[in-house]
C-alpha cells in the first residue's frame, strides 16, 4: 500500500484484505450513512406518521412506528449506521420515548456539519461548537420546563395523551392513556424519599388476540397463561389463601450419586413406598397452612395433586415463570417458599380477593385479582390480530415510560416542535455572541433543530415552507414560545391550548444523545475495516492473580500503567 520509491515491489504493512477510507471521504461517508438511517424512520414522526412493516428472516412481521423497534430489526453493515442504531436503543432504555426524534435529529445535525467539512473547516471546531450549543440547549430547555402536579390525574393525562398522540393506538384515545397511567401508578413504591417505579419487572403486558380493544384493562392483580392442573379443581375461589413455591412437588432424587442394592422383592416395594411417603410428607406440610391455591414454578406429580385435592380441595397451578411468581408475591403478599416443611403462616398470601380461571379464546388464563394494595399488575390487551397487539404493547410501553419520567421529574415542555423552534430561535440569536469560526456550526445546529417541526409538517402533508416561515415568525415574537405544529390538522397551533406536551426528561435525553453521538462520528477521519477478530487488545494476563510485592492493596485490572 505504501509504495517504496527504491524498488517496484510495494511494502505491505497491513493485511491485503483491510480497507481504508481516509479524511474527508470517511467523514462524508459517515454522514451519508447516518442520514440514510434517519431517512428510514423520518416518516414515523408525529401524529400523522405512518407505520413500517418489517419482515424478519424467519418470515415473521413487525408493524410499528417505534423508532427503536424499526431500527432493531434492520441489519446494517455501515459502522456509522450501526452507531446510529445504538442511539435509539440508548434512548429507549433511558426514557422509553423519543426514539424516532433522536435519530432524525442526529441525522440532521450531521447533515448540518457536512458543508463545513466540505469547506475544510476543522472537525474539532465543529465539535466544540456543537458541545457549546448543547449546553445552551439544555439550559434553555430546563428553563422553559413547566412544573406540574404529579398527583393531579388531569396533568399526567395530558402528557401521556400527547405521547400516545403520535402512535398507532391514538385512535382509541383515552383508553390506552388510562391504561398506562393506572399501570404506572400501581407499581409505584415509595421507600423513604426514593420513588421506585419498576415497570420492567412489575407491570406485565399480556396480549390475547381476539376480542375488541375496548376490553383492554389493567388488572388490580395479575394474570398468566396457565390452567389448573386437574379439571376437578375449583376454578373460582373468593379470598383465597395462596401458597407460592419454587420447588417441585414430586419425588426428586438427591444430587449425590446414590445406589440401592436390593436383595429381595420386599425392598423394591419399600423403596417405592418411601418415595410415596416423601411426597405425602411434603403434602402434609402444605396442608398444615390450609391453602386454597398452591402455585409452583416447577412440576406437580399426579400423586401429589390427588393428595392435596383430597386434603383441602386445593387448586394447583404448575410451571409458572419466576417473573410471574415475583409479581404474584407482591400482589397477594405471599413469600415464595422453597421447602414445604418450612412453610409458615406468614408465607401464605391473603391479600387478593379473587382467584379465577377463565377461558378466553382457546386458552385458559388464571386471574388473581381484587387485591387490596397490588404493587404489581398485569395489563390485559385484546385486539384483532397479534401484530396490532404487538404495536399497542410498544405504544403502551412508551406511554408508561413517559408517565414514569413525569412522576419522577414532573416538568413539561411544549411539544409539536414548539420547543425545537424556540431553541432554534434563541440559539440563532445567541450565535452572534459566539466568537470565531465556531459561530457557523453553532448556528447550523440551531437550524438543524428545526428538522423536528419541519418533519412534523411534512408528515401531515402541510405546506412545509409556509408553515415553517409562519412558525418562525411566531417565535420571533415575545410570547411565541407555545406555538408549534398541530400534526393532525397541519396548521400552527398554541400547544398550551391543544395540550401537546413532552416530558423534559425525554427532551433532554434526546438532545444529549443526538448531539454527543454526532460529535463522535464527526471526529472520525479514518475508517479501517476488514480486520480479523483474532487479537483482542484486552488479552487476559496471568499476572492478575499474583500482585507484585510493592503493589500492596491493589487488585484486579491488568491495564494499570
Amino acid at each position, binding site marked *: 500500500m505504501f509504495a517504496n520509491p527504491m524498488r517496484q515491489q510495494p511494502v505491505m504493512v497491513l493485511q491485503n484484505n483491510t480497507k481504508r477510507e481516509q479524511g474527508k471521504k470517511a467523514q462524508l461517508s459517515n454522514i451519508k450513512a447516518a442520514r440514510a438511517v434517519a431517512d428510514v424512520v423520518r416518516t414515523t414522526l408525529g401524529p400523522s406518521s405512518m407505520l413500517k412493516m418489517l419482515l424478519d428472516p424467519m418470515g415473521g412481521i413487525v408493524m410499528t412506528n417505534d423508532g427503536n423497534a424499526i431500527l432493531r430489526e434492520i441489519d446494517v453493515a455501515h459502522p456509522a449506521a450501526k452507531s446510529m442504531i445504538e442511539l435509539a436503543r440508548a434512548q429507549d432504555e433511558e426514557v422509553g420515548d423519543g426514539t424516532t426524534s433522536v435519530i432524525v435529529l442526529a441525522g440532521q445535525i450531521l447533515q448540518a456539519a457536512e458543508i463545513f467539512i466540505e469547506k475544510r473547516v476543522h472537525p474539532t471546531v465543529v465539535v466544540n461548537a456543537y458541545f457549546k450549543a448543547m449546553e445552551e440547549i439544555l439550559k434553555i430547555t430546563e428553563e422553559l420546563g413547566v412544573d406540574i402536579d404529579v398527583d393531579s390525574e388531569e396533568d399526567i393525562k395530558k402528557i401521556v395523551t400527547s405521547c400516545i398522540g403520535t402512535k398507532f393506538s391514538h385512535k382509541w384515545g383515552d383508553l390506552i392513556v388510562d391504561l398506562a397511567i393506572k399501570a404506572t401508578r400501581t407499581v409505584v413504591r415509595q421507600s423513604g424519599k426514593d420513588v421506585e417505579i419498576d415497570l420492567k419487572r412489575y407491570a406485565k403486558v399480556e396480549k390475547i388476540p381476539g376480542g375488541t380493544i375496548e376490553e383492554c384493562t389493567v388488572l388490580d392483580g395479575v394474570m398468566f397463561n396457565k390452567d389448573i392442573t386437574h379439571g376437578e379443581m375449583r376454578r373460582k375461589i373468593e379470598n383465597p389463601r395462596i401458597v407460592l413455591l419454587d420447588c417441585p412437588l414430586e419425588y426428586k432424587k*438427591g444430587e449425590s*450419586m446414590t445406589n*440401592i442394592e436390593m436383595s429381595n422383592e420386599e425392598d423394591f416395594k419399600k423403596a417405592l413406598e418411601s418415595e410415596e411417603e416423601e411426597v405425602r410428607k411434603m403434602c402434609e406440610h402444605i396442608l398444615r397452612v390450609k391453602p386454597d391455591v398452591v402455585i409452583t414454578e416447577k412440576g406437580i406429580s399426579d400423586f401429589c395433586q390427588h393428595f392435596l385435592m383430597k386434603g383441602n380441595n386445593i387448586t394447583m397451578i404448575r410451571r409458572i415463570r419466576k417473573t410471574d411468581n415475583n409479581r404474584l408475591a407482591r400482589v397477594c403478599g405471599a413469600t415464595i417458599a422453597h421447602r414445604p416443611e418450612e412453610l409458615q403462616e406468614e408465607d401464605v398470601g391473603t391479600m387478593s380477593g379473587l382467584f379465577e380461571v377463565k377461558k378466553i379464546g382457546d386458552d385458559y388464563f388464571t386471574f388473581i385479582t381484587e387485591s387490596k394494595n397490588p404493587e404489581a399488575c398485569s395489563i390485559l390487551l385484546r385486539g384483532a390480530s397479534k401484530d396490532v397487539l404487538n404495536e399497542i404493547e410498544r405504544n403502551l410501553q412508551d406511554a408508561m415510560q413517559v408517565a414514569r419520567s413525569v412522576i419522577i421529574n414532573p416538568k413539561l415542555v411544549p411539544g409539536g416542535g414548539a420547543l425545537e423552534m424556540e431553541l432554534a430561535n434563541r440559539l440563532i440569536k445567541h450565535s452572534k455572541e459566539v466568537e470565531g469560526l465556531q459561530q457557523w456550526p453553532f448556528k447550523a445546529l440551531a437550524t438543524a433543530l428545526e428538522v423536528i417541526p419541519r418533519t412534523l409538517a411534512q408528515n401531515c402533508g402541510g405546506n412545509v415552507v409556509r408553515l415553517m416561515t409562519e412558525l418562525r415568525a411566531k417565535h420571533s415574537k415575545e410570547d411565541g414560545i407555545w406555538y408549534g405544529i398541530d400534526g393532525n390538522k397541519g396548521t400552527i397551533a398554541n400547544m398550551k391550548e391543544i395540550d401537546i406536551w413532552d416530558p423534559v426528561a425525554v427532551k433532554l435525553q434526546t438532545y444529549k444523545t443526538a448531539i454527543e453521538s454526532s460529535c*463522535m462520528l464527526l471526529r472520525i477521519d*479514518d475508517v479501517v475495516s476488514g480486520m480479523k477478530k483474532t487479537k483482542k487488545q484486552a488479552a487476559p494476563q496471568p499476572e492478575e492473580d499474583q500482585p507484585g510485592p510493592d503493589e500492596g492493596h491493589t487488585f484486579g485490572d491488568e491495564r494499570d500503567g
Partner: protein
Amino acid sequence: MSGVSIIGEREQGQDVRTSNITAVIGLANIVKTSLGPQGLDKMLVDSIGDVTITNDGATILSQLEVEHPAAKVLVELANLQDKEVGDGTTSVVILAAELLKRANNLVKNKIHPTTVMAGYRLALKEMIKYIKSNLTVKVEDLGRDALISAARTSMSSKIVGSESAFFSEMVVTAMERVKTINNMGKTKYPVKNVNILKVHGKSSKESMLINGYALEMGRAAQGMPTSIENAKIACIAFNLNKFRLHMGIQVLVKDPAELEAIRQKEMDFTKDRVNMIIESGANVVLCSGGIDDFALKYFVEAGVIALRRVSISDMRRIATATGATVVTNLSDYETSDEKFEASNLGSCSLVQEKRIGDYDHIFFEGLAETNCQTIVIRGANEYFLDEVDRSLHDSLCVVKRILESNAIVTGGGAVETSLSVYLDDFARTLESRELLAISEVAESLLIIPKTLAINAALDATDLVAKLKVFHHASQTAEDQSKKELKHYGLDLINGKCRNNMIAGVLEPAISKVKSLKFAIEAAIAILRVDDMIKIAPKLTEEDKMRLAQQQAAAQGQDFF
C-alpha cells in the same frame, strides 16, 4: 548462483533497511492524524462488523492487523508505552518513525549504522539529562491545579476534550482518594482501584464519581432489601447450591429409607451453612457461585442482600477494600465441624442497589479499608463509552505518574523544541561522526510540534520556526526573564506560541523521558537489522493431502 539456498525469501543490506523503514513510516502515517488537541479519531471495523472508535494510538495499532515484521516492532512499542506510562502512545510511534527515516538517509550517505546508533544513544543520554536538570518543574510549586491541567492535557485530544474541565476534576479527585501507603512505606496511587463502569444513556456530563465500589448486577431475589447501612460483608467463594458428593463417589444403601435421609441431609448441609453465615452477623453476602432458590429464602427472611455469581476478581477487590476475607470453605482445623468466623466479615457504611439506565447496580460506599473509587460513565452509545473509558484510563495514568514522580514538563511541543535546540548546540561541540546523528535526532524531535500544527491545519514551518527562536533565546540569553521562554509551546486553537506552563498544558516528566527512551530504542532495534529471512511455511500433512486430492480431482475430470 551458489548451490546453497534457502526456501523462502531473503532481503539484505540497504534493501531490507529501506523496506523496514517504509513500513514503519506507513504505520506512523496511520496514527499521525490522531495526535494533539485537534487530532481526529479512527473508526476500526473488524470482519464481524464490530466497531471501535478511538483516538488512542495503542488501541488503533493493536486493532490493526499489522503484518510487516518491522511494523510489528512499532506496535509493540506503542503497547509498551501504554503499559508503562499509559499516555503518549501516538507520539512515541511518530517519533520512532521519524528517527528511522532520518537514520536511513544517513546510512545511504555511507555512514555506518553503528555510528548512527551510537549517536542516537548519546543524544538520548543528553536529552534525559537536560530534561531532568532544566525542563522539569516540581508539582509542589504548582499545587492541585497542575494535576488538573495535566489530566486535561491528556484528555484534550480525545472525545471528552470539550468536557475536559469536568472530567479532569473527577479524575484528579478519584486519584487523590485512592492514595495508599504500601507495606514498604511508599505512597502509591493504584489506577486499579478506580473502577470504571459504563452505562449508556444520558450524556457524558452526567457521568459520576462514586466514593466506593460498584457491581453491575441486581440482588439475587426481589424480596431482599435494596439498601443496608453499616453493612457486614461476607465473601464466599463456593456455591450455595444443594450439597453433592464429588463425581465418582457413590453411596450404597441397603434400606430405601436411608436414601431419603441422604436427600434431606443434602439440603440441610446448605441450610446450615447459610444459617452460619447469617448468624455471624453478615447482612450482605457475595457468592462467587450460584445460590439455590431454597437457600435464597433464608437470606430473604433474614433481610440480607445476597449476590450470586460475583466474578472472583470483583469479589477479591471488595474483600480487600472492605477488610473481608474471601472464604473458600468453612471447615475448621481443630474440629471436624464447619464454622464461619465473624472475623471474616468486611464492613462498609452503605450497600445499596440503584438503577442506572436500564440496569441494576450494587454500590458499596464508605469502604472500611482502602478507598476504591468508581466512575460511572454515561453517554450516547457503547462506542462512545468505550472511548471515554480509554481516555479516562489514560488520564488516570497521567495523574498517577505525576503524583508518584512529582515532576512535570510543559506539553504542546515545548519540551521537544527545547531539546531540539539544545541538541543542535550540543552536536557542534563534538568532533566525531556522531555529530551527524545527533543533529538528525534534533531535527526528528521537531516532528511532534510539526504534526501538532499540521493536524490543527496551521502553518507548521512558520510556527515551529517561531518556537525555535523562543527556545534559543531562553537557552542562550543571560537575562533571567528570558529563561521562562523555555516553557513556550504551541497554542493550537489560536495558532500562536504561548507559555504553556501558564496555559496549563502539562505532562508528567516521566512520560516524556520514557517515550524518548522507547522511541530511540525501537529505532535502534530496527536499524540494527541488515538481513531479513522469511522462511516459506512448511507443507503440513494436511496440505499435502489436499494438494494430492486436488490433483486427483483434476485428473478425474480429465478422465471423464
